[in-house]
């Protein structure tokens, strides 16, 4: 689970300066880097990817003052190096620290499951309503057809949009990510996240 990460302001400034001289751009890189590292921890089947990402930034913040002067190359690779070390340490961590989110404290009753499914559906409808009509149409078309028809149709879609199928998939991936985040927030607001 994500921790209450508090990076000292001076270290945060140094990290941002190291990532990019333009502060706005550095902020974007920072957010993206967090996202990428979380994904890498997930791919490596680490328990608590969010917590480990916090740990990476925590460790880097303690060394950034010296490291940024000596490290050569893309600073993101330094963060990745720290993340790799954590991946190696991670199995040992898992024994001591279990993500509460993954602990099945109590098997949900069927009625609770139905309720959650209903809430998820409601959140999905809300999130889709808020979506830009063009994007809504894109995701609707992408998922609309069945099996083989779907494969052919997606190629046709990509052709019409003047992009490759790969680019279309990336757009859908990102769009799905946006909807997921919206649904998660909506469920949080509803006080039920499962």
């Amino acid at each position: 689970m994500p921790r209450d990460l508090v990076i000292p302001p001076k270290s945060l400034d140094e990290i941002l300066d190291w990532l990019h001289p333009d502060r706005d751009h550095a902020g974007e890189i920072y957010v993206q880097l967090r996202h990428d590292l979380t994904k890498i921890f997930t791919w490596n089947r680490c328990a608590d990817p969010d917590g480990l990402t916090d740990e990476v930034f925590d460790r880097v913040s303690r060394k950034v003052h010296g490291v940024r002067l000596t490290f050569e190359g893309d600073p993101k690779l330094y963060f990745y190096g720290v993340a790799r070390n954590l991946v190696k340490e991670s199995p040992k961590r898992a024994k001591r620290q279990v993500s509460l989110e993954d602990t099945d404290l109590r098997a949900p009753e069927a009625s609770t499951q139905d309720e959650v499914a209903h809430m998820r559906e409601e959140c999905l409808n809300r999130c889709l309503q808020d979506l830009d009509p063009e994007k809504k149409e894109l995701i609707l078309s992408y998922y609309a057809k069945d099996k083989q028809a779907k494969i052919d149709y997606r190629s046709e879609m990509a052709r019409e949009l003047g992009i490759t199928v790969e680019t279309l998939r990336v757009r859908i991936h990102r769009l799905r990510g946006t909807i997921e985040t919206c649904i998660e927030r909506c469920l949080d607001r509803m006080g039920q996240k499962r």
Partner: protein
Amino acid sequence: MKEEGATDALLRQFLLGRVEDEERQRIESLFITDSQMKDKVLAAEQKLIDDYLDDCLTKADKEAFLLFHGDTAAQRRKLEIARSIQEWAVNRTGKTPIPATPPLSLWDRLRLPKKSILILPIAATAAVAIVFALVWVNNRGTERNREFLAVQQELAQLNTPSSLRDVPAEVHLTLKPTVVRSVESQPELLSRPNIHIVELRLLWMQEKDYPSYQAVVRRAGDGQPYTLDNLTIEKDGGKMIRIRVPARLLTRGNNQIELTGVAANGSKSSSEIYSFFVSE
């Protein structure tokens, strides 16, 4: 770094947790630093999720997928959301509803002969049994068909020219046609759990070459062959056609490959048979 890029097939293996640590680190560091690579990985991940949602993954791929993408509560929640989006889209496209049979009116029911009333439960039971049997047979057929299509798709991905060129082979076995090899012992492949993909190098002994080749893979004790089209010949010293198959596809016993040259007009050469024994 061994290579600069990564093929779709390699990325799929990466996402299913089937690449060595060194390769994994190479892909991960490129994912972080190279926006093009990031897009490739995300596209491969989207394709994998699509295949999962469409139930187009082989059993082994599905297991690996769920291990790496459906292991935690958060991952399962994401998959549930992806499925909900898909269901929403399918429902929104307006599937034609199947018209419900209008209920019998009281008059219709009264008009039914008494004998029919007695026969009805028996007929209904028989009808239900037949429907169940048909559904069962159909499901088995559909399941087999789905599995077959998934394997065909996987084979096609493993054998694209770029995959063959860019992804190093884990293990390979060079085979001669059985007619040439008659006095030699049959080549043997030892099945090991850490081997996922096997490359078979089929030596082409015929004088004439063809623009493309077709290979039919026949597994020991399995009547369902898999076909690979548009294979090309490589001339490095001798002439050979390389094909890659998932190791799990090769069953213990005598496996066979039938290789045929395909001319530009579609006519085919005589076939060469290559056989090898898989042991554990």
